């Protein structure tokens, strides 16, 4: 009989959904989380609200974590990292370091949900001056300010009068090597733009974009209200550079649909940074021997109809470890990976029986 335990690596939205699914299907689950808390990047980076439904991440993900903890046969290991993995499905042996102590965990299947990290806008180029000018921030920095209800220019603590978002920073860029679209930044930037307009009604907010990619209902949930109700200015054209000018930041670009160059002084520039595989995703994929694509994300082995299976039987991936993903993607692949992990144990039990 195969080991019935599933190990889920990563306690963000995808990992929480995967572990919950396993537990609800009545199998023992061990959730290994590197950080000292559950909830993943939305909690670690202090998101103000979740796109597009605007729930409080602490409340929503906190409720998910407490529900998981209340289920039988659930073990949550915080501040823990998988150090090694041997064996094949359905008999994996993992070495997990839990708060400095090494511990063996046997498992029949593994779910890899180690997520993403925000693109570092200082990498490769410095053209937007993220590390140079305090008033150049990234999406997650503004999330944090919105969470504190304190949207200000970091340079002087004053509320900004004019704010712009620059889209596709670290995405869709052959120069940087990230040729993919990060999927969520158009929606997240528009959501933050709405929140800024609500917090600072006298502000002017611009979004400079290449294409606005507002999938499905995001169109009418975020994009139209941002433009129509909150008067966010969408300008098709990407900023070439940000320059300090008279205490403000001059952004230079082309207003392509108006067919004219533009230079506009800004008080706060927000870089809509894309998604890259987290260090944990890179490390765990390597450790587990799971195939990665050229960008470092885990490669789904049999797309498009199997989105979570990897090249290794018994190991499934979920969430942004698989590539750019919004929260709904993460919950969907998380639930699927959990269910597929349990299914693989059942199949193994039958075939080995």
């Amino acid at each position: 009989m195969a080991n019935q335990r599933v190990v889920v690596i990563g306690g963000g939205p995808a990992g929480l959904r995967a572990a919950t699914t396993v537990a609800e299907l009545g199998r023992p689950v061990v959730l290994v989380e590197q950080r000292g808390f559950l909830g993943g990047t939305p909690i670690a980076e202090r998101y103000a609200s979740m796109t597009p439904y605007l729930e409080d991440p602490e409340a929503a993900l906190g409720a998910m974590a407490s529900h998981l903890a209340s289920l039988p046969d659930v073990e949550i290991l915080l501040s823990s990292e998988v150090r090694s993995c041997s064996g094949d499905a359905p008999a994996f042996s993992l070495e997990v370091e839990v708060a400095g102590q090494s511990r063996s965990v046997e498992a029949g299947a593994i779910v890899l949900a180690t997520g993403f990290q925000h693109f570092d806008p200082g990498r490769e180029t410095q053209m937007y001056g993220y590390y140079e000018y305090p008033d150049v921030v990234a999406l997650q920095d503004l999330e944090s300010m919105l969470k504190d209800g304190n949207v200000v220019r970091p340079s002087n603590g004053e509320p900004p009068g004019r704010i712009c978002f620059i889209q596709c920073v670290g995405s869709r860029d052959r120069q940087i090597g990230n040729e993919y679209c990060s999927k969520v930044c158009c929606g997240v930037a528009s959501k933050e733009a709405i929140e800024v307009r609500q917090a600072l009604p006298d502000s002017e907010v611009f979004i400079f974009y290449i294409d606005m990619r507002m999938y499905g209902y995001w169109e009418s949930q975020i994009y139209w209200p941002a433009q129509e109700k909150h008067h966010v200015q969408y300008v098709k054209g990407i900023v070439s550079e940000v320059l300090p000018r008279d205490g403000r930041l001059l952004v230079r670009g082309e207003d392509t649909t108006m067919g004219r160059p533009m230079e506009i002084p800004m008080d706060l520039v927000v870089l809509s940074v894309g998604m890259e595989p987290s260090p944990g995703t890179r490390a765990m994929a390597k450790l587990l021997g799971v195939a990665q694509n050229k960008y470092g994300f885990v490669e789904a082995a049999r797309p498009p109809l199997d989105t979570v299976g990897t090249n290794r039987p018994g190991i499934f991936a979920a969430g942004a470890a698989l590539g750019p993903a919004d929260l709904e993607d993460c919950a969907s692949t998380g639930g699927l990976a959990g269910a597929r992990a349990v299914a693989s144990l059942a199949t193994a039990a039958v075939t080995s029986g």
Partner: protein
Amino acid sequence: MPAATQDPLRKVDDVAGFADVPRAEKERLVAEVFADPRFADYLYGCYECGICVAVCPSARFYDFSPRRIAQAAGRRDVDLLYQQMQEDIWECSQCFSCLRCPRGNNPGGVITIMREVAVNNGMSSAREALEGYSRIIYKIMSTGTQVSPDMLQPDAFPDWGPEVQDVSENLALWRRALPPETHHTTSTGWSVAERTLIELYLIWLETGALDMIRQVDEGLHMILEEVMEDRLEEEGIER
């Protein structure tokens, strides 16, 4: 949203022109456009997709783009909007083909508002655009009608179609084929009942149309007032 930004988008080039017009004057006129109660229903948000230009008859013949009107309004671009009120908006034929907009915008309606603001403020473009129409305005405002079928000139209106030659040559015969008495000639069409004329005049007066005429053609306005003054007196209507 502030009606007009205090700190305009800075362009590399002064593409909008009219640099000699004070900024405050441009802002005042543009603010009047945004303050119009219809504006919010005429412009939601623009995809900049160009379908309004694709369906626009004027765009085929003139350097005119309803998309640029929507974009300038969306951007609150005061300089460009002022330029458009002096130039572009008079190229529109107000056919409203642009209602095809997938976002439900009405660029032609925005132009209607911009034209009204231009006329009400006596902008030079409004005066120039309406200059050639004094006689037409006079006839419409004094009789309620302007064109009658006997004015058909076979060569003057090619857009009336190939049948116009035949119709104009035998108009009297065609009219006899239609039993009811109609206002089909200038002599009958412009002969309007006294009561109707007074009502028409009061409508022009009450709706502000006469004030608009005063802004663009003071001479015409004086003539209309004189024509109507006696009639109103005879009817005992106080103004």
